[in-house]
């Protein structure tokens, strides 16, 4: 009799991570807009009516109550600031910024306050706080009339990874989403967790029931290969894997590295891989200028210079805002075809 393997979706895995940590530690609280929904209406028999954009916080209020699962007004600067203050005074807040595009209205509290507080104060204060935020384009060529356009589809993590003091993780599967979220909550400094909106079934998979951590600051080699290193971030890891499958059919063995933490970056794992494969393609969903793609390309280009058989190739989304029309959005985001083409160009 085989044990049935428990599979969770990306959102369910994050939900479980939050739930387990909230059980374990009464100082963990979650806050954000409609992370529960129907706030203040328990007396009408209404509650838990929303659960965040990906339902990752659904049900938490039932178990932990409104004191620890806090629906906020639309005031990202204020409540992110509130989380900073709470983290300095004995709580471990997990803040949800509904979409990463909205960091525009609370960027100061993220980059100037949360990220720098420990340093500015000479290391004398800890800041155990997590920011969860959803990002990304659909980019799946479905013949959709349109997506969410320029202000609700961005990736933007480059402008967070840029900031010293801020850890930024980008899970790609239900398994590592749970482990990274738990690691983020247990970290004593600020960590941003970037949650892709359209991972769909590609992220679904076995997730153990108990709490576990996936280490922050470590890449994972998710496919071994000897001819080229494909470096993926978030959903782009799946794009790399798809490309690797195609390449394998043509006899090219691609190694795929899932970055997982974009800051601080585990550059050793990537560089070691490239030293073995002699070629590197970085695939990033963000726009190209000052991107993680070019950041990694530059580090590899410098550290593995003597090992490279071809220039490191950085593949990003188009250097444009995200267009609405599906026909345009489909070309906006990197896909496996582009990765395969880049590798073929390198191997020539």
């Amino acid at each position, binding site marked *: 009799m085989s044990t049935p393997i428990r599979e969770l979706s990306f959102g369910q895995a994050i939900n479980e991570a939050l739930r387990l940590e909230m059980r374990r530690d009464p100082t963990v609280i979650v806050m954000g807009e409609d992370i529960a929904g*129907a706030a203040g209406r328990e007396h009408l028999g209404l509650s838990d009516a929303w659960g965040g954009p990906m339902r990752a916080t659904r049900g938490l209020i039932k178990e932990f109550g409104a004191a620890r699962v806090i629906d906020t007004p639309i005031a990202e600067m204020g409540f992110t600031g509130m989380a900073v203050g709470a983290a300095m005074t004995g709580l471990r807040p997990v803040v949800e910024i509904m979409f990463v595009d909205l960091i525009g*209205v609370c960027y100061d509290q993220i980059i100037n306050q949360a990220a720098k507080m420990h340093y500015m104060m000479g290391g004398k204060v800890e800041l155990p706080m997590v920011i969860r935020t959803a990002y990304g384009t659909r980019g799946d060529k479905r013949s959709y*009339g349109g997506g969410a356009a320029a202000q609700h589809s961005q990736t933007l993590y480059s402008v967070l990874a840029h900031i010293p003091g801020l850890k930024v993780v980008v899970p790609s599967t239900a398994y590592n989403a749970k482990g990274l979220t738990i690691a983020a909550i247990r970290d004593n400094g600020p960590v941003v967790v970037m949650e892709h909106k359209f991972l769909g079934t590609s992220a679904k998979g076995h997730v153990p029931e108990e709490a576990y951590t996936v280490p922050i600051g470590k890449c994972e080699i998710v496919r071994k290969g000897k001819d080229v290193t494909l470096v993926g971030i978030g959903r782009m890891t799946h794009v790399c894997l798809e490309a690797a499958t195609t390449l394998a059919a043509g006899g090219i063995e691609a190694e795929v590295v899932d970055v997982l933490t974009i800051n601080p970056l585990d550059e050793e794992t990537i560089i070691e891989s490239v030293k073995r494969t002699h070629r590197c393609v970085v695939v990033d969903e963000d726009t190209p200028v000052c991107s993680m793609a070019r950041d990694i390309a530059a580090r590899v280009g410098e550290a593995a210079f003597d090992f490279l058989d071809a220039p490191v190739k950085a593949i990003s989304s188009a250097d444009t805002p995200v267009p609405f029309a599906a026909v345009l959005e489909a070309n906006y985001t990197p896909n496996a075809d582009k990765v395969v083409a880049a590798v073929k160009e390198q191997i020539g």
Partner: protein
Amino acid sequence: MKTTSKPTAEKLAWMYERMSLIRQFEERLKWLVETGVPVGAVHYYIGQEAVAAGVCAALNADDWIASNHRGHGHCIAKGVEVAPMMAELFGKVTGTNRGKGGSMHITDITKGILGVNPIVGASVGHALGAALSAKVRQTTQVAAAFFGEGGAGIGITHECMNMASIWKLPVIFVCENNGYAQATPVEYASSTAKISDRAAGYNMPGVNVDGQDPVAVWEAAEAAVKRARAGEGPSFIEAKTYRYFGHHQGDDTLRYRLKEEEQAARDRDCLKQFRAKMEKSGPLKLADLDAIDAQNKKLLDDAVEFAKSSPLPGPEELYTDVYVQAKGGAQ
């Protein structure tokens, strides 16, 4: 701040025509969505029509409005044609934004629209800028900013109210209090019972009007516009209203509110009440209103046909209009 003038029959007909067109646009859109036509994320304005119609009835063609994510109604009320609007939702190159913006960015700058804008609060700043522009260029234009009661809580709204007041800018803050920000009830999220009570803290008049009655909204807007054009500064209008459906097309469970509440709101439907009033005491006749409805239906039929038959943007459109090419302006 009450004005004594009464709306003319023409004005009433205009308001009805706009409310009816908005309602029909949204209902048609909802039908399209539900039959599987993909139009991206949309936030229906159904239920709130009287607010947009009432405010825009007080504005001139060259006045400005700034809109939020729930913007279809504002755009139609200010004069955007429904055919290019529908084409935009279909992602077509004939759309108001060439298919690059979609529902959350619809605009027609030639009609005085600074854009639908889904970052809560952002467009309040844009209305302030248009008002500043009118002042600096010494025109008599005014600008109205539409935002929800949720948007009243974000920082930029506060900043703009203060600046509008100190500079006496010709701007009208129109807070559409539909009771909810997504699934968050206003009585939870706002520290004051009436959002309009906050106006006093910015030394500007604040009124609270029935947002289901376009005439009540129009009266308040007329007074605010008059004050603005006279150089006396900004005003705040809170219009109590209700959205019949979910926050966006995907929100269909509505588990944050009671059916009774929904029914009570529908009983006060702006179109229904308007028709009842006209039937009772005129000046418009129901037949006039039916004719307007029929004409709007035709407009919507044509709009959908236009949207369907229009071409998609070519692949090069992804890369165009990222930077403004040198042209026009003071070069």
